[in-house]
């Protein structure tokens, strides 16, 4: 079952006085499976944030359909979604407790249950003991974690995160990854954007790739990583005992192996280099650029 279905989404930002209208989303269609972590990747300016903002109604699309669990966005649907935008400003004079209490009061009709959930969430984002500190005293990484704490506070079924690891140091990224993994373990569907593709390798089962407002790929992450495998490498020793390495496309490996054997070389190893999502993403973009030139 899909928790999110986006169909033919289009958005054009109208022009300033003398400018041209800017088309930012062109027929964007994709799905996010229930209980699965889906990465949304694209370079800066490719339309990731605009798409995420359309999902929650912050930007009104010109055309297209967005359905959560088969329904249009409503307050009932919103109460099942946790959202964290890219680098938001949190009310800095509030303490962690005041800030999360504020979000609890906005999302829930009763104050009961806040205390337990608050402590649970604080522990999860590794901010225990920081309940009464004003947010203005927090580092960037800590603020990011407070933001994620508000997103998971109401135990959402779907988490939408916009660049949750952007601008963080390795420690900060590690903590955020752990939080995402803990939500995965609880069966929460996660849809998050990032241009840090190394993190996608670790966290995502599915991928949606966007470039210049168009979806280039939608499917499972493993297939995407394997889509553009790198060269294979043959290490061999020739008759005189000298060791060599050659790099070849996968399609030519068998013929080369036959040739080397016929010459009496000893094959030491054959390695297939899988460069992962990052490599496939670059190849896909390169392919698209070539097509655009034609």
């Amino acid at each position: 079952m899909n928790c999110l279905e986006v169909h033919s989404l289009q958005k054009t930002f109208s022009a300033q006085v003398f400018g041209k209208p800017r088309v930012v989303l062109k027929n964007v269609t994709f799905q996010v499976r229930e209980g699965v972590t889906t990465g949304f990747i694209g370079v800066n300016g490719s339309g990731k944030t605009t798409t995420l903002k359309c999902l929650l109604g912050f930007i009104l699309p010109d055309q297209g359909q967005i359905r959560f669990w088969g329904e249009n966005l409503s307050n009932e649907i919103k109460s099942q979604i946790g959202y964290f935008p890219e680098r938001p400003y949190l009310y800095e004079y509030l303490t962690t407790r005041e800030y999360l209490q504020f979000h609890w009061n906005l999302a829930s009709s009763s104050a009961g249950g806040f205390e337990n959930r608050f402590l649970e969430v604080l522990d999860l984002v590794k901010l225990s003991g920081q309940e009464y500190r004003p947010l203005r005293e927090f580092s960037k990484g800590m603020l990011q974690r407070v933001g994620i704490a508000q997103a998971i506070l109401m135990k959402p079924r779907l988490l939408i995160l916009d660049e949750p690891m952007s601008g963080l140091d390795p420690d900060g990224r590690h903590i955020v990854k752990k939080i995402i993994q803990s939500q995965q373990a609880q069966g929460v569907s996660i849809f998050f954007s990032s241009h840090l593709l190394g993190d996608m390798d670790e966290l995502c089962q599915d991928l949606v790739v966007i470039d210049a407002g168009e979806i280039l790929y939608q499917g499972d992450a493993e297939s995407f990583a394997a889509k553009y495998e790198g060269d294979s490498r043959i290490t061999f020793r020739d008759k005189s005992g000298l060791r060599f390495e050659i790099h070849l496309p996968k399609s030519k490996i068998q013929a080369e192996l036959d040739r080397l054997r016929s010459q009496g070389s000893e094959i030491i190893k054959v390695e297939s280099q899988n460069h992962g999502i990052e490599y496939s993403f670059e190849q896909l973009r390169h392919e698209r650029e070539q097509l655009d030139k034609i």
Partner: protein
Amino acid sequence: MKSLVIAKTTFRELLREKIFHIFIIIAFLFFGLSFLLGSLSFDEQKRILLHLGFAGINLALVGISCGLGSFSISREIERQTCLLILARPLSRTTFYLGKWLGIWGAQILVGLGLGACLYAFLGFAFPFFSYAQALFGVLLETSILLALAFFMVQVVRPAVALFSSFGIYLMGQWLPELQYFTQKSESSFMTGLNQLLNFIVPHFYRMNWRSAYLIENNLIGDQLILVTTHGLAWTLILLVGGASLFKRRDLV
């Protein structure tokens, strides 16, 4: 109900804002100035203190209305703070109303606080009920002006909204002068302009009861209900208009 939650947080944040404190300091500077000027006169000290004191309160509240009203929502959009709130199960109208209520609540607190200080400085010399009515007029003005700044910022950029809402406020104060010039000029264009402005600009001058003569002689009472209705109607019109524009806006 959720508007009140947003209002409470807005109110709490606002009381800690530096710009807010600056406006309050300006009001106190006016109080100090009125003491100085008052000391130059033998029998008008209290009147001078009342007029300049009210001018200080009015200036502070007009500054807060135009300044915070024009920048509050746009700053929330720019910093993406409002996205976190609007992702919750509530409407944009609830958010809009909550922000307005929060700022107006803070203005009421400041208005009442400064008003009480001024009344104490005046040695409780003026009739309390009349004095309270004059203060109510100032708060009614700020309610319209804040709603106006909220409305304007949905149409134009914040800096333009600030100046245009202040400009409309001045027009609303000067409508009687325009009326006077219209009668003198006998031009049909001026008559038309006067009629148009009377129709599209809130009558701020009607809420200006900050005069020692009016307060001493209890002359405000007659107009209170009519002017309050006028003020609340304008506030409501501007809030409904602004909220419906905000609902259709892309929060980029």
